């Protein structure tokens, strides 16, 4: 039976740790490739200008060098960058992508070379159509070069801590009046729901007004269904304030909450 397409690479280490690396989709890869094409174009332009000066002395030598250098740059750009920059070309770095071994083992030079040499087939007939289709239909968003080289392209996020001080701003939290209920909501909330609520608060100013009202209404309803606070506390709060108070309970340390 054909296995379903996935957007993560699940891994289980011998230590028993299970996690998943997020796979890059065809669109982000296409954008990274566009940046790379621009870089190759810019490098060739600079090279052409440099060789122009040699051309004044020996035109034939300058032209022959340009033909060879352009060939080496266009073939070698991906190989060199992905090998020396741990799976990242400039385009992949800009888009936060990285080439990895399919089993998350060390990337070998031969893998980097094979996936880049097979671009000639992935690029057929125009604009990476073969590679794009392969990427869309393959289980791990792999183009033919990736399939042959046992590689995948993952999204490579940088660490960033949420600015809780800025977000919560030391406002009065009426839910904290009921500590046993606050403890219960900490216990019952799933990591995913907590993360969604935090993200919603961090991005609250980016939403359309109606979408913002709807989102916080849904989130507040979810948290209200987990733990029922007394009506005199819960009903005084708007949905957004309710979610804000819940997020403070979830993310603040127990000590910090006691001090407040």
């Amino acid at each position, binding site marked *: 039976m054909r296995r379903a397409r996935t957007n993560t690479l699940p891994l289980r280490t011998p230590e028993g740790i299970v996690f998943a690396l997020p796979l890059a989709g065809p669109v982000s890869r296409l954008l990274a490739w566009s940046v790379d094409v621009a870089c190759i174009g810019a490098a060739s332009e600079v090279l052409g200008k440099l060789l122009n000066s040699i051309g004044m002395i020996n035109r034939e030598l300058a032209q022959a060098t340009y033909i060879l250098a352009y060939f080496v740059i266009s073939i070698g750009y991906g190989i060199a960058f992905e090998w020396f920059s741990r799976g990242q070309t400039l385009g992949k770095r800009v888009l936060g992508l990285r080439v990895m071994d399919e089993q998350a*083992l060390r990337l070998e030079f031969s893998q980097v070379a094979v996936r880049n040499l097979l671009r000639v087939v992935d690029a057929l007939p125009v604009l990476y159509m073969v590679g794009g289709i392969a990427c869309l239909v393959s289980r791990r968003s792999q183009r033919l070069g990736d399939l042959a080289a046992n590689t995948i392209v993952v999204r490579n996020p940088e660490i960033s801590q949420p600015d809780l001080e800025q977000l919560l701003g030391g406002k009065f939290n009426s839910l904290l009046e009921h500590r046993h209920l606050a403890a219960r909501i*900490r216990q019952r*909330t799933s990591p995913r729901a907590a993360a969604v609520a935090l993200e919603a608060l961090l991005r609250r100013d980016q939403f359309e007004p109606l979408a913002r009202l709807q989102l916080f209404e849904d989130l507040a309803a979810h948290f209200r269904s987990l733990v029922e606070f007394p009506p005199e506390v819960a009903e005084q709060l708007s949905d957004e304030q309710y979610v804000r108070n819940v997020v403070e309970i979830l993310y603040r340390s127990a000590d910090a909450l006691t001090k407040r």
Partner: protein
Amino acid sequence: MIVDLKRFLAEERKYWTELESVLNRIERNAEYRMELPEVLKFHELYERASADLAKIETFAGEPEIRRFLEGLVARAYSEIHETREKRNKLNLWRWFVVTFPQTFRRRIKPFWLSVAVTIAGCVFGGVAIRIDPDAKPILMPFPGLKEDPSERVRKEETAKNDRLVGHKGTFAADLMTHNTKVAIMTMALGVTWGAGTTISLFYNGVILGAVGADYVHAGQTVFLLGWLLPHGAVEIPSILLGGQAGFLLASALIGWGSRKTRGARLREISSDLVTIIFGAGILLVWAGIVESFLSQYHQPVIPYALKIAFGATELAALTIFLSRSGATAAKKEAE
């Protein structure tokens, strides 16, 4: 259970930073070898990061931190659980004279298949042009080959001016890049389970066979050998090497008679694939120079006998190189 995120970060972050710096050091320098205390420390940091990841998975932690830890653990995992030998710094000369011919011999079967497909193409091309001479523009779609061989030989031998003067360098560069692209494409088409490689080799064979039959039939065999042999003695085997790499890739994809997974089969051949195609690329640099600076000059500028002798010597040298070079090193390694 909900994590006290700030405290967790404050306590653990220094270990993650340390692990990250060790990983950066390892990954930046392929030559880097850790001492035993460093290995133990590295392993300890890896286990700590793994435990942190396990903790944060169960907490309502911030997803970015989880992803960061996953990335860190994945990088450390790849170093700790990698069983393939870490290669020493590449010695280009040794790679070319030892590794490349050794690899060629170890993977000889796909090469013979490559030869067989090309010969089949040659036979087809030769027979086709004899049966239907009007098909010449289709079989040989190149302007220089369309005219009558005897007429071309007459023009070449009576030419007063060097038509390549001032262009030899660019012509050589064009030939090198074009032929290398053909070899890479022949290899890469192996990913179509070998169908593309077969078509590419067969088509090359058809052109070669048609040209050969056309010139031999016109009584220009000596010219043909003098023209093709100096560069063809290296160029044609290089394209065959591209075919060898293509069929090697195809055999790993198909996996006849192998119980290994497709991934394991591809992992086994990827290094050999790269060695063969890079070796072919180097040979094609030589072929491009010879084709531009020697092959295009005919009698009376350069006697055919000399050109044929040169081509035959090259072919013999290449055969000896591919069949013998690196054999002593292999014996020593075995001992």
